[in-house]
């Protein structure tokens, strides 16, 4: 089990890698989304916000998220550090993403662009 602080650190690592990737920022300029990241095994909620291609992270839940990402704390930490890809936990149900199919594909894509290969 990971802690809330470890999830925060993984999200900040994800944000740093994202914001260093100019091509990825360009790809997402049209995709403004508020994403709730919620741990299923500990009280931990974070908000990822994409606006104009820039990604920000803050602690706590947003009022009206466009997407909700739910998994146990360990999976979330592994995911945002890039130790695992989202596809398999999504397919086996460990990772739940609530939102439109288009948005789910896009979120998967962002993660692969950061950590892929």
């Amino acid at each position, binding site marked *: 089990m990971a802690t809330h602080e470890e999830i925060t650190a993984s999200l900040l690592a994800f944000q740093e890698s994202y914001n260093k990737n100019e*091509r990825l920022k*360009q*790809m*997402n300029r*049209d*995709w403004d989304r508020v994403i709730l990241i919620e741990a299923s095994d500990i009280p931990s909620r974070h908000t990822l916000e994409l606006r104009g291609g820039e990604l920000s992270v803050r602690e706590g839940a947003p009022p009206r998220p466009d997407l909700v990402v739910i998994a146990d704390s360990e999976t979330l930490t592994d995911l945002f550090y890039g130790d695992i*890809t*989202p*596809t*398999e936990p999504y*397919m086996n149900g460990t990772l739940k993403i609530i939102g439109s*199919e*288009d948005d*789910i*594909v*896009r979120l*998967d*894509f962002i993660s*692969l*662009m950061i950590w*892929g*290969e």
Partner: protein
Amino acid sequence: MKRVVSVSLGSSRRDHRVEVELLGELFEISRRGTDGDFERAVRLLQELDGKVDAIGLGGIDVYLYAGKTRYVVQDGLKLMQAVRHTPVVDGSGLKNTLERETVYYLREHTDFLAPGTKVLMVSAVDRFGMAEALSELGCDLTFGDLIFSAGIPYPIRSMQELEELARKILPEMVKLPFHMLYPTGKKQETQDEEKVRKFGHFYQEAQVIAGDFHLMRRYMPRLNGQVIITNTTTPEDVAFLKEKGAGYLVTTTPEFAGRSFGTNVIEAVLVTILQKPWEEITPEEYLECLKRLDFKPRLVPLQ
């Protein structure tokens, strides 16, 4: 009589059956759509296994290529593995030969693909041979793989970038349910109006639009005389393209009874003629067989 059946995840409204004589042998070729129902497709494949001469998988790819790397679409593989006795193909083996040849044929016989021609390929990883041939001819290429499969308005402009992005993304994306990446079933009969508005300019800026017809159709805006290079078109599809304002239709596969069949069907026919496992058939053998059959691209003026 040889029987070849294409089992498709696409709409059953496009089903058809023809009889055609090829190299002195009578073939019954039919297409059976399962309306995007994966389990129905598996059951149908199991029913046909051992009872027909070859099966084509339509509305889905099993193998995608970028450079020398082959990526296996997991859903496609599950369908292929449902068949144990009858040869089953997805058309990817033939695409590499037939669609390259189509590009070279158009260079020789038309002025559609002069160097610098702006070409939109709605998706290139399912037609890498065509993408490479267009690149060889010096066309100004836009690959729409991210735009039309992932909704990301990022045009890929070179083969190098296509291969680089494929290396990052495809090993994982191929594990997703295929319907998340490609229009299956009823989606093949409708247009995504929001994306038509958002991405239509990529079509309008091109002189030639090439690639998978269902993907192309789903996001196609009003055109202004563009050349369309594709296959699997029905008379209704031809009417749709005319109405949209396309200038020419080039189909890479021959027409039987008003239908241009998918490459999976033609590959299944060739496998039946060549009587070899598809993994052992070389591009040269496909090419030689296509010459014997006198298969040529079909050019249809639309305006």
